[in-house]
């Protein structure tokens, strides 16, 4: 095959040629770093604060962001069931119709639910976990998936959930 890689296009050779040919006026041009630090992922967010302080900070952040939550049960103080009016849905409603229904007359639920739970990993090391917990409609109407085949049951957009968790993490970061 006549397919080949042009030798003079390889970065190292190009730089050598530029230096030897005297064409280089601007000598402080350095190559982009090719070793990219791999993104290190964690579950949720870590904390070494006192557990009750962590919960207090989360409740304050949720309040500042206008979220609401169910009163925690005595036996489970470390779980918060949050409901959040998602502004994006109003916007969609305005875009597509006035009464938050789109052309196919489908309800666009606007209350995103999240479960926030505090776990102890080891002594003085805690993890705040965020889980998506479905949608509700502020009018109280049940959110029923439209009649779709079982194959498509999982066409699910995580972006509203991801967006609201970034808002909460920002609020916690700013407050702390």
């Amino acid at each position, binding site marked *: 095959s006549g397919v080949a890689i042009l030798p003079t296009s390889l970065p190292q050779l190009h730089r050598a040629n530029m230096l030897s040919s005297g064409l280089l006026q601007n000598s402080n041009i350095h190559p982009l770093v090719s070793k990219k630090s791999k993104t290190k992922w964690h579950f949720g967010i870590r904390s070494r604060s006192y557990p009750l302080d962590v919960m207090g900070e989360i409740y304050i952040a949720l309040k500042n962001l206008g979220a609401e939550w169910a009163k925690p049960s005595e036996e489970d103080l470390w779980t918060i069931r949050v409901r959040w009016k998602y502004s994006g849905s109003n916007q969609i409603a305005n875009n597509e119709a006035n009464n938050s229904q789109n052309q196919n007359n489908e309800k666009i639920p606007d209350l995103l639910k999240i479960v926030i739970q505090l776990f102890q990993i080891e002594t003085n090391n805690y993890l705040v976990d965020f889980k998506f917990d479905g949608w509700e409609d502020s009018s109280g109407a049940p959110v029923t998936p439209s009649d779709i085949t079982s194959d498509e049951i999982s066409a699910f957009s995580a972006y509203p959930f*991801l967006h609201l968790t970034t808002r909460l993490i920002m609020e916690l970061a700013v407050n702390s």
Partner: protein
Amino acid sequence: LATSSIKHNTLCVASIVRYKRKYVTQILYAPL
């Protein structure tokens, strides 16, 4: 929810979602 440490004032969060029979790790970068 998966998170990565804040760099350059940018937040990065992700969650793994099943789309039909495949798995998408949806990663969102947002400003802090």
